[in-house]
């Protein structure tokens, strides 16, 4: 018969073995050896802290009470593991790239490094975790008591054994969980010890199972018959509980702080998930393989009223198989201790990083980060946190009296931590999830969980029975276990349904309505698109002088060696010769992540902020810079517009200049033409006057002829000068118009008579006098001048044998159109564009005109608001004069 003393000895020996393994593993990891410590197998085995004493002992008890329902808590994690490719892989990648230290850190990091959120998650985790620890303590105590009962000689006191167990676990957790502030919070010693414990508990359960199936029942076939014949021999699982528990255990598997610790924080290689994806479900399958047989055999063999939760121990004991019972005890002990140690570690990390450190930092405000050794503060905070958490668990156990109430704690804790799920999943897959949303969801879920499950579960300690029966203040629809009047649901199913659905709704609505801060949006993008870019947000800038301060601070947190190593590596990477790296944003960002591995993202951010201080660049600043550069861009585009305008103006100026040059050339050529025109008559006048002066004996006839020539030339000069004067007056626009009323007919009458007066050549003028009865209001003399010019041109240049000029007039919509067409050969096409230019003459100068007539005509017509054009295709030369019937001032 195994005495209690032997049991205690074995137990202590086992603990010593664990210490040894943990110590050796830490040493090996520190020495850089032991690659197997980071193998997928160790990773998979460490995940099995999911199987606590609650599952080791409780699964059999659960099976004895409600058949196959117990497998739900294994099936949930199995579903999570087989969907690792798009679920856990992302979580682990995010956790590694952001260097998160706990699930609270992850949530806080995702929602803009908000410490409020981290505190909320921490409180939730502690509230859910403490009773869970109490449950483990209970299981150890119960299993002790079984042996104590069997050994009447032993001195066994329940209270003191719980105390010593709690103390021992706290010491183990402190020794191996807070030995160092690891770069990445990895604890090789603890993980290895846990892996060993996993093997032990699996082996123990399999051994008991094998003993039951082959030793007692006599093989698989008889066992199956026995199962069917037992009182739980029928499938009788409630559909709601089946679905809810699978979902709940899947959610808790991801959200439990201890699972997050081993799955994400302690993960050394993302590829380990690939192995764990099938190996861990296999582990779970093996763990649950013999649960029903043990339960059935226990129900058969054990007396009525014995605790089915302890069948794993009592069945081998009742068969006299003490060593098997001992093994099974060690298995249960392993399950309990590994869970407690990891939970205490994970919770203490959260408490110290998100509660203690921010408070400590705020008390250090102003004196900077140089006072005090941060490293020691963090470690001390963790050690104290572990002790406090263990003490809480111990007192919870003492308060609850260790009764059956604890048995339901497992699912209560699951439902509690599952409240993190919406914020976690939303944060990983939805960029629109905001801090406000996460806070709202967590608060709603937490309150509902406390109100509908935690308080009612305490057996009237904190919630009076009347509230449970009739609701608060007699409001029936607020009854904690029948919200909105929906009764008859299982309490767990009720809580999970209401809390998680309202949690999710609050999370979504608040996220949709709120607007995230820039840092939050940046972090959101990094989390959701973690595969695209695994870099942290940039936000620091500093000067070289701060490198030393940073170094001092980093040494305090990471320890002197690793800090110097890190700074050295950074300096080398920057290529500088100095031993201190420049505080570039990239360096500060890496340093922040490095530090966040030890003290959490929010704290690391705050600490670096204290040193880099005023020159820290917040994302808001960056956005302000972006705004400014947007303004600069706008300004530069305005400049571009102006410069384009200038270019246009310059081109216009160039064109104007070219025009001026052209005009100047025109003026020069005009002057030379005028001089030429003036010189020709002057030459003949001078020549003939010299002849008359110097030639003796000129006859009177000759004298008369010469004088006539001189007179003619002088006339021509006068006419030329008159024309020039006239033209210059017209061109400069200084002409005074003498507007009067008359008919076209009388104007034409006068023009024809004065043009044909004293003519030697006969020119027939054809007119339609009736059509010419159009009233005119214009400068009649100037118009007459135009007509005279046109008629005399026809008289001069028409080369027909019997020259005929046809003048026809029309009234076209308020305008008078008068055509002058003769029957000569007309103007050759190439000269037509030139006839209105000054000094333009067609062919040989017959009549000695200066070539200014038509130019003057054009100017006059422009002044009168009309025009004169050459009209081709009339048989001879034809001109069309067009002018308004009533002279308008605006026409000028």
């Amino acid at each position, binding site marked *: 018969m195994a005495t209690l003393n032997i049991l205690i000895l074995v137990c202590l020996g086992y603990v010593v073995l664990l210490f040894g393994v943990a110590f050796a593993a830490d040493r090996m990891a520190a020495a850089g050896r032991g690659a197997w410590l980071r193998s997928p197998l160790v990773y998979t085995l460490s995940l099995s802290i999911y199987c606590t004493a609650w599952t080791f002992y409780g699964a059999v008890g659960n099976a004895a009470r409600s058949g196959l329902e117990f497998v739900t808590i294994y099936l949930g994690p199995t579903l999570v593991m*087989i969907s690792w490719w798009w679920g856990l892989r992302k979580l682990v990648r995010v956790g590694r790239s952001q260097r998160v230290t706990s699930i609270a850190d992850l949530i806080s990091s995702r929602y803009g490094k908000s410490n409020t959120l981290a505190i909320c998650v921490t409180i939730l985790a502690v509230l859910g975790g403490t009773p869970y620890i109490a449950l483990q303590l209970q299981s150890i105590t119960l299993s002790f008591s079984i042996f104590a009962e069997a050994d009447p000689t032993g001195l066994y006191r329940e209270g003191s054994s719980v105390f010593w167990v709690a103390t021992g676990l706290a010491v183990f957790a402190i020794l191996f969980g807070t030995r160092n502030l690891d770069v990445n919070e990895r604890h090789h010693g603890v993980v290895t010890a846990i892996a060993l414990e996993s093997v032990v508990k699996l082996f123990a359960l399999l051994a008991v199972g094998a003993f039951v199936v082959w030793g007692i029942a006599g093989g698989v076939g008889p066992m199956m018959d026995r199962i069917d014949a037992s009182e739980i021999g029928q499938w009788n699982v409630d559909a709601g509980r089946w679905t809810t528990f699978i979902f709940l255990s899947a959610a808790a598997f991801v959200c439990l702080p201890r699972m997050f610790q081993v799955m994400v924080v302690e993960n050394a290689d993302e590829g380990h998930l690939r192995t764990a994806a099938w190996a861990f479900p296999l582990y779970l*399958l093996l763990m649950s393989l013999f649960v029903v047989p043990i339960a059935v055999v226990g129900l058969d063999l054990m007396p009525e009223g014995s605790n089915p939760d302890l069948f794993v121990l009592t069945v081998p004991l009742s068969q006299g198989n003490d060593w098997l019972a001992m093994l099974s005890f060690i298995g249960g002990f392993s399950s309990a201790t590994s869970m407690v140690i990891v939970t205490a570690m994970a919770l203490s990390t959260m408490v110290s990083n998100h509660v203690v450190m921010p408070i400590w930092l705020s008390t250090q405000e102003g004196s900077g980060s140089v006072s005090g050794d941060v490293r020691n503060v963090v470690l001390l905070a963790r050690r104290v946190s572990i002790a406090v958490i263990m003490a809480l668990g111990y007192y919870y156990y003492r308060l609850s009296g260790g009764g059956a109430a604890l048995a339901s704690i497992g699912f209560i804790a699951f439902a509690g931590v599952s409240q993190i799920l919406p914020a976690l999943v939303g944060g990983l897959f939805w960029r629109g999830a905001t801090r406000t949303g996460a806070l709202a969801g967590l608060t709603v879920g937490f309150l509902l969980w406390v109100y509908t499950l935690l308080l009612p579960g305490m057996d009237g300690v904190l919630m009076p029975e009347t509230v449970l029966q009739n609701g608060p203040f007699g409001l029936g629809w607020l009854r904690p276990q029948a919200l909105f009047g929906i009764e008859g649901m299982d309490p767990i199913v009720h809580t999970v349904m209401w809390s998680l659905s309202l949690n999710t709704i609050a999370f979504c609505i608040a996220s949709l309505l709120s607007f995230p801060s820039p840092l939050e949006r940046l972090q959101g993008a990094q989390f959701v698109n973690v595969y695209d870019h695994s870099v942290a947000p940039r936000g620091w800038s500093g000067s070289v002088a701060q490198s030393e301060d940073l170094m001092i601070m980093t040494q305090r947190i990471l320890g002197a060696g690793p800090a110097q190593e890190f700074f050295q590596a950074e300096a080398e990477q920057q290529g500088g010769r100095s031993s201190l790296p420049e505080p570039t944003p990239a360096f500060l960002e890496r340093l922040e992540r490095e530090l966040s591995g030890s003290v959490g993202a929010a704290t690391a951010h705050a600490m670096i902020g204290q040193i880099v201080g005023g020159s820290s660049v917040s994302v808001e600043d960056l956005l302000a810079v972006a705004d400014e550069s947007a303004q600069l861009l706008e300004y530069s585009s305005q400049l571009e517009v102006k410069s384009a305008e200038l270019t246009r103006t310059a081109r216009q100026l160039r064109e104007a200049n070219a025009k001026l040059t052209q005009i100047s050339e025109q003026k020069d050529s005009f002057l030379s033409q005028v001089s030429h025109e003036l010189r020709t008559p002057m030459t003949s006048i001078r020549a003939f006057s010299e002849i008359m002066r110097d030639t003796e004996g000129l006859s009177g006839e000759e004298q008369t002829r010469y004088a006539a020539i001189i007179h003619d030339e002088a006339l021509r000069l006068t006419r030329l000068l008159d024309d020039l004067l006239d033209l210059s007056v017209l061109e400069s626009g200084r002409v005074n118009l003498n507007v009067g009323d008359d008919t076209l007919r009388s104007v034409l009458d006068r023009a024809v008579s004065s043009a044909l007066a004293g003519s030697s050549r006969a020119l027939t003028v054809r007119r339609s006098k009736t059509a010419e009865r159009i009233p005119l209001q214009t400068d009649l003399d100037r118009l007459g001048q135009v007509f005279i010019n046109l008629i005399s041109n026809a008289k001069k240049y028409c080369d027909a044998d019997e020259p005929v000029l046809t003048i026809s007039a029309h009234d076209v919509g308020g305008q008078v159109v008068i055509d002058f067409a003769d029957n000569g050969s007309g103007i050759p096409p190439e000269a037509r564009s030139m006839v209105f230019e000054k000094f333009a003459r067609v062919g040989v100068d017959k009549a000695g005109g200066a070539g200014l007539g038509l130019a003057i005509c054009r100017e006059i017509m422009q002044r009168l608001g009309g025009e004169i054009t050459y009209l081709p295709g009339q048989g001879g030369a034809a001109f069309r004069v067009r002018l308004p019937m009533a002279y308008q001032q605006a026409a000028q």
Partner: protein
Amino acid sequence: MSPDEDRKPSGVRPSLFLERQSYRRRRLSDAARLMPFLGAALLAIPLLWSDGQGTQEGVSLSSAIFYIFTCWAVMIVASLVFGFAARRMAGHDESEPETDRWQR
């Protein structure tokens, strides 16, 4: 299809057909996404079972155990096969960004 796997380098027009290797890889990740649904469907079957309280004969516990553990084993084997396939594929495509270069 998740954007991280279908995204092509910007500016490059994605071709309609993929080479055989990446086609297989994508179908593999499709399979990974389908796996939990298959598992959930298998585990939802017991919801249809009679609990033996009516006139019908209920499902015996041994058959229930047999069914559930078989499903479980199927899921494990599927996950194992996928794990090996994913590892083989990963051998061809080790292009993920190195994030921990400076860590040690």
